[in-house]
């Protein structure tokens, strides 16, 4: 391939922009971040993803300088930043509440940081106008924050944080205050702006869809620890734990006893049923395992498919019609419910299956992944 792929994390020679080295942060008895190490590279769009209280916000606040690590070091451009106060860091933040100054106009909000740098007025003016253009709110420069819409406020917050051309931009739940439709549009714009400015973005979110859409890499966090750091497709297709598999998207988990069979693994999961064949996430010994498979990789049919190893029979329990997709909840004789998803590619197609139908579910040997339990 002639085109170079943007993957500095796979390049041993690349220097990370940010390095967390064994960083721990405690608040009293509570450990928010637990001995965590991570490298983030220049120009990355990096997402910290996790439920509330997982430590992602603390990570970001340590980068911004509002918290100091209890132990460990954080390096920015090879320099330990813990002694540097927030106002001296080349790191800017877009706050979840936007934190726009209500007594200043949009223009003055964006100019606020530039004025602190004592830039000459004409440079400030030029930069503010550039920012207003970048986020497409030229018309609203003279308004106060309360006189513009939520989506526009979000843009002002972004412009204000970008105005100082920081090495690193932190975004705290940047889109959570917007409604769904606007959120989706803004996600793409955010990616555009990130590309145009070449700034490194670190975004904190609890919305997995948002993280998957915007980020070059996603770090899934839980209880102050990193569960997995990987590209969105790897996180989805090759989760390394049931936690990650379950947190991202929809998944069927079947528990059983695994036995290695060359590259694959055979999992005995129910009395009298043939074992399921799956691909292990990493080399693992025989023992208790979880088999995870996404609903869209489970095929549903009325007849038993002949060409597949993994076939089970069950009864349709529930059907969720989502417009573009339909999800069937199929109960197996052992009581387990497996979800299978089909795309509704044709309009007005009569629904092939209905409640109480006996159906066959099947998947290929590589469709599901075997995880340690």
């Amino acid at each position, binding site marked *: 391939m002639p085109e170079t792929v943007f993957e500095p994390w796979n390049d041993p020679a690349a220097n990370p922009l940010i390095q967390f080295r064994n960083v721990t942060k405690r608040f009293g008895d509570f450990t928010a971040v637990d001995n965590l190490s991570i490298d983030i590279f220049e120009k990355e769009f990096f997402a910290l993803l996790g439920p509330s209280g997982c430590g992602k916000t603390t990570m970001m606040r340590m980068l*911004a*300088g*509002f918290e100091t690590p209890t132990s460990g070091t954080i390096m920015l451009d090879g320099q330990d930043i813990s002694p540097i*106060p*927030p*106002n*001296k860091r080349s*790191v*800017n*933040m877009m*706050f*979840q*509440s936007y*934190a*726009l*100054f*209500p*007594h200043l106009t949009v223009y003055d909000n964006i100019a*606020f*940081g530039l004025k*602190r*740098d004592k830039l000459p007025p004409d440079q400030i003016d030029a930069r503010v106008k550039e920012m207003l253009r970048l986020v497409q709110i030229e018309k609203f420069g003279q308004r106060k924050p309360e006189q513009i819409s939520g989506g526009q406020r979000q843009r002002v917050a972004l412009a*204000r*944080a970008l105005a*100082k051309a920081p090495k690193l931009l932190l975004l705290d739940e940047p889109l959570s205050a917007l409604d769904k439709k606007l959120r989706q549009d803004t996600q793409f714009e955010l990616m555009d702006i990130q590309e145009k400015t070449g700034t490194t973005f670190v975004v904190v979110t609890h919305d997995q869809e948002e993280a998957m859409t915007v980020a070059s890499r996603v770090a899934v966090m839980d209880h102050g620890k990193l569960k997995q750091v990987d590209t969105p497709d790897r996180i989805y297709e090759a989760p390394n734990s049931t936690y990650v598999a379950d947190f991202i998207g929809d998944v069927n988990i079947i528990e059983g006893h695994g036995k290695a069979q060359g590259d694959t693994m055979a999992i005995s999961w129910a009395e009298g049923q043939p074992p399921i064949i799956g691909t292990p996430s990493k080399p693992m010994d025989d023992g208790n395992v979880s088999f995870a498979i996404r609903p869209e990789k489970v095929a549903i049919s009325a007849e038993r498919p002949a060409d597949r190893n993994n076939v089970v029979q069950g009864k349709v329990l529930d059907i969720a019609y989502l417009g573009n997709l339909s999800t069937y909840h199929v109960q197996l004789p052992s009581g387990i419910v497996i979800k299978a998803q089909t795309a509704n590619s044709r309009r007005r197609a009569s629904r092939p299956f209905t409640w109480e139908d006996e159906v066959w579910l099947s998947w290929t040997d590589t469709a599901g992944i075997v995880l340690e339990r």
Partner: protein
Amino acid sequence: MNLRRFSLIAVPYFWLLGLFLIPFLIVFKISLSDIALSIPPYTPTLELSEGWAGFRDFLSQLDFENFEFLATDDLYWKSYLSSVQIAFISTFICLLIGFPIAYGMANAPKEWQPTLMLLVILPFWTSFLIRVYSLIGILSQEGMLNQFLMWLGLIGEPLTILNTNVAVYIGIVYTYCPFMILPIYATLIKLDGSLLEAAEDLGCSRTEAFWRITVPLSKAGIIAGCFLVFIPALGEFVIPSLLGGSDTLMIGKTLFEEFYNNRDWPVASAVAVILLLILIIPIVLYQRNEQKMMEAET
């Protein structure tokens, strides 16, 4: 309009008309009358029995003589000016003392705040007179303040504080401080902490963030507090008469003395009318500020 709604509106309405508005109109009318040795001690009085002619006669005898008198006698001018000055300076001192207290309260740990609030409200419910009284002992020649200053070695001889304007300043600041603290605290407690973090993030030092964010955003509370001190301080009577000296001129005291000692009701009424005219400006400004605060909240 049904009877019930009518009476619901009418009872408080007519009560206030009769006991607030009409009395004030009477003050206005008497301010245009002349002093007389009679009961009541002013003239003319309206004789309704004489009908329309009586009314015309009554009107023709009203004049602005009392106001002219106020303008020529410098006792009144000095009283007004010195009231404004005393009220203004005490308001400023109140702000200097009240703001740090409000700021300290707003930044104190959450679990302390109800207690701190209670400590500010308690003086507010305590008798005003008693709080002024409590200063008399402190400020007197042999009082605690002089003893303390002498113990510090700052002064050799006890100072005369009581019965001077200094005591009036201290009295106003002491009694009205809670009025300054409460509205400022109310705006500071609502201040979103992330605004200060954003300012720091954009390169402000903490001091700079305080002046650029905290102060402008607590402006409404500061203004409200200043008016809540300034307006009542301007017409104050108790403090100048208990803590001030014979040379302390405040218009509330002057009015009271005019009324009781000189029994010159028309002049006292004229003094009241002028005082109210002076107060209209700060009152209107205060109302506007309140309205702005209300709008900001919705």
